[in-house]
């Protein structure tokens, strides 16, 4: 079936009941979304579908036909990082970094819906995502910074 991922329509060969996460990683070679639990409890697999943050570990590709899927790779590149990525690099908001793509996507969903989101909004929005290294303070600071960058301040 066809999937719209980061602006490109791709043909995937996985069974329709396959969770999106495995298609992203194994078929499309997109590394950012991660396997953390497969249970919708940790958010490491978070991606965007039509702007909504979803658990790609639980979403079968069959329900995503025609939806615009975006991953961290769609937010920018190493050469030209987007504002969210720029913010996380500037704030050095990572220790092991495994949870970070999920955090970035969830923060992205919030800021696209609510560009002037406050720090309290950010903390609330990130509740579904877990971090074990304890990088929470920096993640919040990076999301705040991303909001500033997205609003055009520098």
């Amino acid at each position, binding site marked *: 079936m066809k999937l719209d991922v980061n602006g490109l329509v791709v043909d995937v060969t996985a069974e329709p009941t396959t*969770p999106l996460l495995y298609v992203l990683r194994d078929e499309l070679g997109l590394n950012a979304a991660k396997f953390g639990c497969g249970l*919708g409890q940790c958010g490491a697999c978070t991606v965007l579908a039509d702007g909504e943050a979803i658990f790609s570990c*639980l*979403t079968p590709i069959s*329900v995503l036909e025609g939806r615009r899927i975006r991953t961290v790779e769609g937010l920018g590149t190493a050469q030209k990082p987007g504002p969210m990525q720029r913010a996380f690099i500037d704030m050095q908001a990572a220790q092991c970094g495994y949870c970070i793509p999920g955090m970035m996507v969830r923060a992205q969903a919030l800021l696209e819906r609510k560009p002037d989101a406050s720090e309290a909004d950010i903390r609330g929005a990130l509740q579904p995502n877990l971090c074990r290294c304890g990088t929470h303070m920096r993640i919040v600071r990076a999301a705040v910074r991303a909001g500033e960058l997205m609003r055009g301040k520098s």
Partner: protein
Amino acid sequence: MLSGFSGCAAQRAIAPAAAPQTFPHELIAKGAELAHLGNCLGCHTAEGGKPYAGGTPIQTPFGTVYGTNITPDADTGIGGWPLEAFTRAMREGVDRSGRHLYPAFPYDHFTKATDDDIAALFAFIMTREPVKQENRRNTVPIPRTFLGFWKSRYLKTGVYRPDAGHDAQWNRGAYLVQGLGHCGACHTPRNKLGAEKHDSAFAGGEAEGWHAPALNAASPSPVPWTPEALHTYLRTGIADLHAATAGPMAEVVHDLSQASDADIAAIARYIASLDTRSEADRARARDAALERARSALAMRGQAVYDGACADCHNRGRAEQGGALPLPLGTALTMPTPRNLIQIIRDGIVPPDGERGAWMPAFKGMLTDEQLTDLLSYLRALTGQPAWTDVAGEVRKISRGDQ
């Protein structure tokens, strides 16, 4: 002693207590237990607010009533209320100054509590941390004086009288359920004036946009509840062949986790007894439900179920990480899909930081159409008549209406 409520006019004011009151430690502890059984915290604490300081909106068909500040603050709470005033509020729904209280405060149930229990609750409430917080104005356009009339028709005051035809445990359960537990406040249908229909006690009702299912012979549970299953459900929030607690009931179960095992057993016993079907009828229903579950599981379902639900729900609870086999879920057999819609969209998640089984939230993942398809498929598994206007219900809830 049962007595009808008399008098439409406002009642007399009661003078405040002369001095700050102190209470023996055991009485406070007993009151704490009773407060959990009655879930006072639930209606008297706003989201993110201080305990018992009020501010909770309670939606009624007549407008929004706000739970009041029942901390012992002298200005904004019930500081200074003597026991007499507290008892009158609990039994007759009248505050210290003599005003009628809206029956969103279920005094029609609390009236059944004994004097000793009310005194213990009083001791507990009066030793909470005083919080200065003004009560919010209710948006109910019905004047309080009307409540005098309402009470004269619908309020039967008086302590619970044990039924000699049943043993001590059953009566304890009845006392708790009919009294402080106020289960009927959600689980009994109400008439147009908002009073519980006593001739349809426990025939099913409403709470905060959720359906509170019938607990009597009309119970929609495919496998009829036993006292043991109810006990497990009330104790842990999950009963293997029945349900996982969700919505407002989840808060009730969370509070009941503080109650003694004996009280939980009594409540379970009493509630199980409300289902007056014969043993033979119950056994027939159970066997049919289990058979349907078995054959439904053998069906290949729609892609949504197979992709999004099957991985956990096909394993059954006994398996590692498995979940309730859905054909047995009570949410599927209720007269309305509302509960199931909310469960699928929001998941069932333990309170922040607490342990528990976890169903993830699927809103955003499934479009309204996909959710509608899934619901129709799940309903078909039960063999019950299809729900009407599932798409409409989904749309209402996803738009935030209740």
